[in-house]
């Protein structure tokens, strides 16, 4: 029976990270981009927890670190959504492509 080892987690985390990255690069909707960033952050959490379990089983540094990451991610999403709402109020759309007033 296939035993789940550290490499599986790292590969999963890498895959999740790439998906998140792909989402950030292609999604046109600001909220979707924000979600994809969260995806990338959760990929890192997987990584951290996996390392904490397999490499330093005695202490919880990795897990503590992932808790910090989760809290910060939450704060980030809060602020990000607030900004997106503010933009929506001003420009009535959240399509990233036409936010290009600041250029050159």
């Amino acid at each position: 029976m296939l035993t789940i080892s550290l490499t599986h987690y790292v590969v999963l985390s890498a895959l999740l990270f790439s998906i998140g990255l792909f989402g950030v690069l292609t999604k046109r909707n600001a909220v979707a981009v924000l979600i994809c960033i969260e995806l990338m952050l959760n990929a890192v959490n997987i990584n951290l927890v996996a390392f904490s379990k397999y490499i330093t089983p005695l202490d919880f540094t990795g897990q503590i670190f992932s808790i910090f990451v989760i809290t910060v991610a939450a704060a980030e999403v809060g602020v990000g959504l607030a900004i997106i709402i503010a933009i929506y109020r001003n420009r009535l759309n959240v399509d990233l492509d036409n936010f290009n007033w600041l250029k050159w």
Partner: protein
Amino acid sequence: MTPFDFSMPINPAALTLEMLVAALGLGVLILGIISPKGARSGLGWVSFLGLMGIIGVAITMWGQSGELLAGMYLLDNYALFWKITFMVAAALVILGNMRYVDNVGHQAEYYSLTIFATLGMMVMASAGDLMTLYLGLELMTIAFVVLVCLRKKDNKSVEAGMKYILLAGMSSAVLLYGLSLLYGLTGSVIMLDISRIIAMQPVSSALVLALVMLIAGLGFKISAVPFHMWSPDVYEGAPTPVTSFLSMGSKAASFAIILRLFITALPGVWENWAMVIAILAGITIIIGNLVAIPQTSIKRLLAYSSIAQAGYIMVGMVTASEAGIKGVMFYAFLYVFATAGAFTVAAYFYNVTGSDELKDYAGLSQRSPLMAAVMLVALLSMAGIPPLAGFVGKFYLFKTIVDGYLWLVFIGLIMSMVSVYYYLRVALVMYRDEPKDPSPINVSGPVTVTLIVTMLVTLIIGIYPGPLSEVVNSAAHSFFLH
């Protein structure tokens, strides 16, 4: 691997500065809510005097050293110097732009967030491990994001905020990924342990990937070239005092953690990242200066010039030596004053005329000689023209890399002379052209004080850098004592 025991004594003395700043921030926030609408402008003076008090305390703490929680939080001259730099920067920004902030409104939020951002930077300065590093970084970034879109009504500010939050989020994800790999490879988050473990094991490709991720994540923060795309737009969009604090504080703090991370944690792989940093520095200097040439808005010009300045500071990192650190810290300190001067002038000019365009700066020398002189001195100090601080700073920086990376010295110095071109174009507009409306601009009290302080400090460091270089020497020396 030593397990983490909670019984370790925490000596609170190490955290006095951070606690004071946090208290000041909360105090300002509460005062803001309590005080009636009219008295909001007083908050500026409260936060300024508070900061000056804390700077006093920091100076008295000079020379103390210690660490907290088994190396997670380091306190030494190095961290103290950075903290003093951040607080000075914050104080200058607050003092210089009180009139601007009163026009914008939301004083409470502005001042408290600025102080919280400073707090974030101070945490980063004495971060001894990956977690504290990340926490300080995120505290600063999120505080800045809110500051950037302070003017909710102005599309530019909000667009800048949106760009900043999304790109910063992505870059911190990348950084985190690198940190997690680093943690995975070494099993510890304490930087000192990491360097010991890396020294023992051969360089694995995972470590190289971690290194790349770290360079990318932190490169974003100091706006090194391939990762700099966000900074011109955010600098232009954000309200000018925020841009000023962003370009001074955030960049300096990022350099504080880069030095900590790369020189304490990753000396083992120095051969790997030295040449990359050198190449990045070279490209940053070149592109930062070249793209600044065609700019027409003073803020965007200063944005690109600050990218170029980041390139110069990166030069100090290349040799990972005490002289290198000294060069970075010295240049960061004088860079703070030059940027504060330039942006205060830009902010006040925007306040009076409502425009950032260079052509509106025509005849500024006749309308207000002080503003024109301060702008000129600030710009020329960034260019590295001798009597000003930039020259001494660049001398220290390039002194370190002459042996191995002579090509970088050539790029650095020739590009800084090319930068004189667009700096002098600003001077040309200010000194030669006749002003459209020749009404003199009378500069209010606190702004004059900031302008004069920045100009004098830039001149004095330029002419007599002796004492400052002594202080920075002892700070850089304490870096290696752990």
